[in-house]
């Protein structure tokens, strides 16, 4: 086992006003890639923590879904969250950021809860994918959100 901390810096497409239930994502349909989530192809691990850095000071509750395969298909950024059955089958878990703590007058930390416990996964490659779904009506700039993942990879690195 190897503990890893990954900082994700997505660039949002719409970077505009979202409504509750909207997907918040970058270009493409695979969400936010988190790599390396495994040191070997088709390896596994466990998601243990997630921290959202909200530099836009929006403080809106957020759901974060995890997918094990790039083939899942997200909606467009700023569109209502809806995926097909095949994509849903690639989902391995979900966490929620329900509340925030300020780190400055203009920025917030959102510490995710894991209501269903830590999330085991097995990658199709060496990457897992995140989908953010807002539960409020925030306005984000293109680089307004940062995500830090804490996870345990099964196979120690070389």
């Amino acid at each position, binding site marked *: 086992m190897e*503990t890893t901390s990954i*900082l994700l810096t997505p660039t949002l497409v719409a970077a505009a006003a979202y409504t509750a239930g909207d997907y918040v994502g970058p270009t493409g349909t695979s969400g936010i890639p988190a790599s390396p989530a495994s040191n070997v192809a088709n390896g596994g691990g466990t998601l243990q923590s997630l921290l959202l*850095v909200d*530099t836009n000071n929006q403080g809106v509750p957020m759901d974060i879904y995890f997918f094990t395969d790039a083939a899942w298909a997200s909606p467009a950024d700023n569109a209502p969250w809806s995926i097909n059955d095949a994509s849903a089958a690639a989902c391995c878990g979900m966490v929620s950021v329900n509340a925030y703590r300020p*780190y400055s007058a203009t*920025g917030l930390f959102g510490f995710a809860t894991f209501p269903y416990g830590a999330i085991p996964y097995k990658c199709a490659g060496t990457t897992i994918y995140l989908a953010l779904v807002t539960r409020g009506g925030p306005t984000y700039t293109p680089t307004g959100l*940062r995500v830090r993942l*804490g996870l345990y990879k099964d196979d120690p690195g070389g």
Partner: protein
Amino acid sequence: MQTRSLWMSVPLTSGVPYLGGPYAAGDFIQPYYATPRANGLGCNPASDVAGGGGTIVSLTVVDNDNQGAPLDFFVFDSFNWTGPADNAPFSIANFSANECLGLVTVKSYVRHGTGLIGFATFPQGPIPYKCGDGGRTLYLGIVTRAPATYGPYPLDVRLGLYTDGFGTPLP
């Protein structure tokens, strides 16, 4: 995996006359170091190897000054984050926020004779980390959530960790 227990004191002065707080709710508590720095309380060694990782599973704080103030402990993996000055409101830049890994909170204390012991809750669960900078140190940003007047040596902190691997036994 190896279990570790790290014990750190939080001096607020080098021993010269110290006026002692008072801290207001939301103020940052920066320990004194002979070489001044602004990145909180260093916790070392938090890893068996340089750049290694582990998990924080417990935190205990001894309040020698009987203040009983709730405390937040923000966990950072890099010395590059920059906190405010001691006794100033906690406010950090986005760059520093990106180095944060998690938060634990001491909400209440139990008495131990002349002082208080506070046991942290982990509302978001244990905190995995990988030491940044190719080092073996974690950094804690301590923020009081209530007014407190601390003397020169007010707090001691104990971290319970599980470090990756089975490296050379640590002190």
